[in-house]
Structure formats: structure tokens, C-alpha cells
């Protein structure tokens, strides 16, 4: 085997970066799983202050959920465009994905400030602590994702995002879809399934 071939030899035929990234996604399952578990076991235990029923805005959050779902579609179309070397549509879809991610963050920012005005702060009660930490971590991940997408966009405008770089976009896509999938779980268990408070023990 020549040295060049040896340097790129893999035992699975798969790219190491993709394997590593799926492993990272696996660990993120545990990160968000622990945050969600905490939110769930603490639900209904706040002693005072606003809780789910009084303050969560389902219509608004439904819109932001649609927005994030659509951004996943944009992302997957962006990857397809990069893979076929379509510079124009790659830039369009990447821009739209990043835009929709920013819109989602806008919704979050609005929701957070509105909640604070309604008397639910980070330290107001257990609901505030668990809610803001869980959705804050998620929002932080979305923010990093937007920065990543903008970076890819800049690379594309520099002419450095051809089909040979498709894996970079694919991995950004894996990250983006995973963040979307976490939101699917959060939207369901936090917003839609609001359990009634447990009887005082």
C-alpha cells in the first residue's frame, strides 16, 4: 500500500469525522436527556410563582416549532445543493436555514422577556429554573448552529464550498437536525403535555 493510501486508510470505509460527530450526538442525547428528566421530575413542585398553565403560549410556540421544522427542510436542501455543486441554491438554502434559525431565536428572546415581565424569572421558582435552563441550553445550541451556518455561507461566497466539501455541510446538517429533534421533544413534553401539579406530599 502506498504511503498516501495508507494515510487515508479506514477500517470501515467511512469518514472519521462523521463517526466522531454521531458519537458527539449520542453524548448530547444524555445531556438533553438529563435536562429533560430534571424538568419532568420537578414539574408541579414549584411552591409559588407562575407555572406552565398560566404562562406558556402554545400558539406562539407552535409557530416557532413550524419555523424550526422548516429550517430542517432548508438544511437538507442546502446539503443536496452543495453535493451537486449548485453554488447559487446552496447559498440560498444555507441563508434561509440560518435565517429561520435566527427567527427561532427571536421567538425565544420574545418569550423569555415576556415571561420575565409576567413575573417568571430564572430564579423565581423551580419552573423558572428548570424551564429557562432547558430551553436556554437548547437556544444556545441553536445559536452555535447559526454561527456555524453563517461560517459555511461565508466559505461558500469565498468559493470554498464545492462538492468536495459536502461532508462539512452534512455534519453541520446533522447538528442542525439534532437540535431540531431535541426541540420536538421539548415542545411535546414542556408545552403540550403540561401535567397537573402533584398533590402536596
Amino acid at each position, binding site marked *: 500500500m502506498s*504511503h498516501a493510501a495508507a494515510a487515508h486508510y479506514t477500517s470501515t470505509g467511512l469518514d472519521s469525522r462523521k463517526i466522531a460527530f454521531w458519537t458527539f450526538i449520542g453524548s448530547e442525547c444524555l445531556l438533553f436527556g438529563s435536562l429533560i428528566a430534571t424538568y419532568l421530575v420537578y414539574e408541579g413542585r414549584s411552591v409559588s410563582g407562575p407555572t406552565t398553565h398560566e404562562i406558556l403560549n402554545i400558539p406562539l410556540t407552535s409557530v416557532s416549532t413550524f419555523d424550526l421544522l422548516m429550517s430542517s427542510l432548508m438544511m437538507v436542501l442546502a446539503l443536496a445543493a452543495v453535493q451537486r455543486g449548485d453554488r447559487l441554491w446552496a447559498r440560498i438554502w444555507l441563508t434561509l436555514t440560518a435565517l429561520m434559525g435566527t427567527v427561532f431565536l427571536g421567538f425565544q428572546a420574545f418569550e423569555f422577556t415576556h415571561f420575565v415581565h409576567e413575573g417568571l424569572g430564572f430564579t423565581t421558582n423551580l419552573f423558572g429554573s428548570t424551564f429557562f435552563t432547558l430551553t436556554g441550553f437548547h437556544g444556545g445550541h441553536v445559536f452555535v448552529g447559526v454561527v456555524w451556518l453563517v461560517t459555511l455561507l461565508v466559505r461558500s461566497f469565498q468559493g470554498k464550498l464545492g462538492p468536495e466539501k459536502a461532508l462539512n455541510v452534512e455534519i453541520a446538517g446533522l447538528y442542525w437536525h439534532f437540535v431540531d429533534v431535541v426541540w420536538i421533544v421539548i415542545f411535546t413534553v414542556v408545552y403540550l403535555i403540561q401535567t397537573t401539579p402533584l398533590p402536596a406530599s
Partner: protein
Amino acid sequence: MSQATATPLHNAPAVPIAPTGLWSWITTTDHKRIGLLYGFTAIFFFLVGGLEALFMRLQLGAPGNSVVSAETYNQLFTMHGTTMIFLAVMPLSSAFFNYIIPLQIGARDVAFPRLNAFSYWVFLAGGLLLNASFVAGPLFGADRLSVAPNGGWFGYANLTSSLQYSPGPNIDFWVLGLQILGIASLAAGFNFITTILNLRAPGMKLMRMPVFTWMSLVTQFLVVTAFPVITVGLVFLMLDRIFGTTFYDVSSGGDVILWQHLFWLFGHPEVYIIILPAMGVVSEVLPTFSRKPLFGYAIVVYSGVLIGVMGWGVWAHHMFSTGLGPVADTVFSATTMLIAVPTGVKIFNWIATMWGGRIHLTTSMWFAVAFISSFIIGGLSGVMHSSPPADLQQTDTYFVVAHFHYVLVGGAVQGLFAGIYYWWPKIFGHRLKEGVGKLHFWLMFVGMNLTFFPMHFSGLLGMPRRIYTYGPELGLDTLNLMSTAGAFLTGLALLVFVYNAWASRHEPKVGKNPWAAATLEWAISSPPPVYNFSVLPTVTSRLPLWTEHGVSEIPDTPPGPMHVPGGSHWPLMTALGVLVMAVGALQHHHFVPSLVTVLAGLGVVVVSVYRWAFEPFEV
């Protein structure tokens, strides 16, 4: 621009050599150098943790002693546990992951060499931050030696979460230090999983891998799944302390037991993270010095995998005294008893490996055999804990201390020393002195047993953990004195080892395979060339060097020009940024300077990551 004191080597002479000089070490991305860095740092912190233990044992050597105050004692046992686990044993295992795994699987390096360097530098940053607490008191308006972490290595809330009970920066040092170390471990986890799955040489199927590599793979899966959980628990602790959230505040509806759940969900897999690599080492050493292949290779591998998976189902056995209720207690009691089974299977397989073999009692072999006997004792006391009613007497007493030191010191440490004596010639080109090694072994073996065996008794006689003194009326004087004597003997053993490392530097040079072992790392020179393998070998057997045509020929000089990746300083810079962020967070009582420092650190991290991502770097 990748920095390297060695020029990019495409047009260079055919045989690259490792660059020299301090900068080449700071920017190294070579797994062998990173392994050495881990190893030396781990031994250094092992001595620090040992010193902490000696002070503890001095204090407890007699009743009513006043060698250290209660406050100092709390810092000592906290730092001893934290240091030994996170700064000594885990990094020592990492030293072997780094140096040995690529050699065992026939690879040139790990999958992500710069990420590998980053893991080391971040680990060093975490270790330095934690230990800086010993001298940082005056920066916080306190005495020296008063702000080191003092809430136990397990940091139970709400002692640690409440600013009323832990007002100083002690716990902040602990939380931030552990978060930093978690980053190092996670990065290494992604790296080694990918390396083991994807960089095995042709023919090196998973079930042909050496057991050490297999156990390391299981370990890394535990790392990447368990560390996020403690991260979340620590984040809650940090938020409670810095912002006044109520995760662990009972009066607001929170639950201190949640901390215990999150901690032990991590903490139990963590002890398997600690022991599995040592089990892997022993699985290499025993066959070599029995001149017999490992008995039941597949069973040993599957048992290791089973231990890893089942390790997720036992965590609440650390919480039998917290009132979980009879159903939970029963479930976790059952799972804990079950997990003894795969461990027992391995022990029988190790014994069967030696049975009928031609035993060579080298120092390495002594340590490996002692591992088995010590681990059996530690495992037996462990399974005694698995019964909740029995555990109610044992928990929070020295009986537990006896148990986990038998498995940690008798098990992990002795196992890792078996690895040190085994792989030393491969790494340094000469053996450690055998005579001095045997002295090291016997001092350590006797010392360890003298220290911890009496603790079974003092524990069952009621001596609680984490107390800085005890009264003479308890009748524990002799037992404690024995433990103290044993501790000093163990310390002496360590010094003998350090002497051995230094004094053996002029031992005769060894060839490729001084132990006539079976696995791939012994097919190349000692120490290996910077590129490891001149050609990628093809492997047809699990025991390549013990099988005719088990591995293809590996020429001593490369047949053509070789490329060796240069170094990079961006991993170090990124680690530095992380450290600055943590230092900023420590000052959280002064909000604006704290925020500025954290943001500055974040800036360094972001810039360094971008430069890292876009610098030309070829593996």
C-alpha cells in the same frame, strides 16, 4: 499555519524523526508524546494525592489528634479523592490509551491528533485550577490552605449548593475544575471511539483486537454517555451558587437527592471507566507471562461490554440510605448483585489463562496477579454492599472506604503499574530494573493491605467516614495506627518506583519484543519510530506475533517518503481560553470583571477554534 519545528516532510529524507525542543512538545500532536505528557502529569498528581492521604493518615493515626484542623481535613479528603480519580488514575489510563492503542491496532496516530492534544492541555488546565485553590486563599480575602474544595469528591447538595453552608470559593473551584476535566474526557472519548472503530489495520477485525483496546473502547463509550450527566448536575450546582436558582433548594420545591441521582448516574459508570482499562492491561500481561493465550477471549470481551452496559443500571446502590423506598432498593440491589457475574467470569478466565502456563514472575506479572486477588477482595466487599439492609450498617463507614480502595488501589492502580512495567521497554527502549521493581511491588502490596484491610474492621465497628478525629473510647486506635503505617509504606513504595524510573535509564537497550508478547505493538522498534509503522501491516490473527504469518512484514525503514503531521498551537490556545473562562467564573461575586474575563476567554476559544479549523493540517 501549522507550526512545526520539523519542516513538512513531503520532500524530506525518507525517514522522519521526532522534532526536539520545548516548542515541539507544546505543539505536539503525536499520540506517543501526548501519552508521555499524560503519564508524567498523572504520576505527579498521584504523588500530590498521596501526600494528601499521608496527611489524613497522620491526623487519624491517633485519637484526638491535632495535626490538621477539621476544615483542613475536609479539604484534604476532598482533594485526595478528586485528585486520585480525575488527575491520577484516569490520566494514567489515558497515557496508555494514547501511547498503546494506535500501536495495538496498527495505526499511525489517533483519528484527530489535534483534538488529542487539546484533551491533554485542557486536562492540565483543570488539574492546575483545582490545585491552585491550595494557594489562592489570599485572592479571596482568606487564609492560604483554606479555599480548596472541601465538600467531598462527590459534592453532596445542599452542603455544596447553599452559599450559607459553603460560602467561600472552595466549591466553585471544584465545580469549575470538574467541568474543565469533563471537556477533556469527552473530547478524548470521541477521538478514541473513532480511532478504534475506524483506524484498525487491514485484517484487524473487532474480535481480533487486543483486550486492552476492547476495554478502552467500552470505557470511552461510558465516558461519552456518563459525563454529560454530571455536566448537567454540575451546571445546576453552579447556577444555584452563582445565580440563586433552586435546583437543590428544598424550601422552593427542589430536591437534594436529585444531585445524588445525577452524580451517581455518572459516578457508577465512572468507576467502571476507572477499572476497565486496568482489566484490559491485566488481560495483556497475564497471557504474555503465562506463555498462553488469554482463556476465553470472546467471553472476556463480552463480559467487559456487559459490565459497561449493566454499569448504567446500578447507580442508586450508592443511595440505599436516602429513603428511595423498598421497590427501588430491591431493583438496584438485584442489578448490583447481577453485575458481579461478568466480573467473576473475567476473574475465572484470568485464572484459567495462568493455569498450565509457564509462569514468568516479572514485576509486571506480580502486579497483575495481585490485581486479581485484591479485586476479588474488593469485589466481595462490594457485593456485601449490594444488600440494602447490610449496607445500612456499612454505608458512610470505613467499610466502604476499605471496599473502594481495594478495587481502586488494589485493582486499578496495581493493574496500571502492571502496565507501566510491561510497556516501559516499548516506550523508553529499556526495561525498568526488576530487583527494584520487586521491592516496589512488595512494599506496595503489603502497604496497601496494611492500610485498607483494617478498615473493614474499623468500619464495621462503627468508624464513620469523613471525620477528622475520633475518641479513644471507641477502641479504634490500633486499627487506625495500622492503616497509617500501611499508608507510609505505600508512599515509600511510590518513591521506590520513582527511583526505579530514574535509575533504570542506563539499563540495556531492548529490541522490538523483549517479553516475546503476541500483539502488534511488539512488532516495531522500542521506542517506535515517529510514524509507528513503516507500512500498514495486514493482520490475520488475534495473536499476530504468536501465529505463523500472523502479520505481514513491517520493514525497518520505510519503503518511500513518509509524511508526519506537524504540530499546532491552537489546541493549547483553545485550552487556555477555557481556563480563562473558568478563572473568570470564579470571580462571580464581582459581576462585571467576572463577565469581562469570561467573555475574553470565550473570545480566545472562538478565535482559536476557527484558526484550528482552517489551518492546513494533514494527518
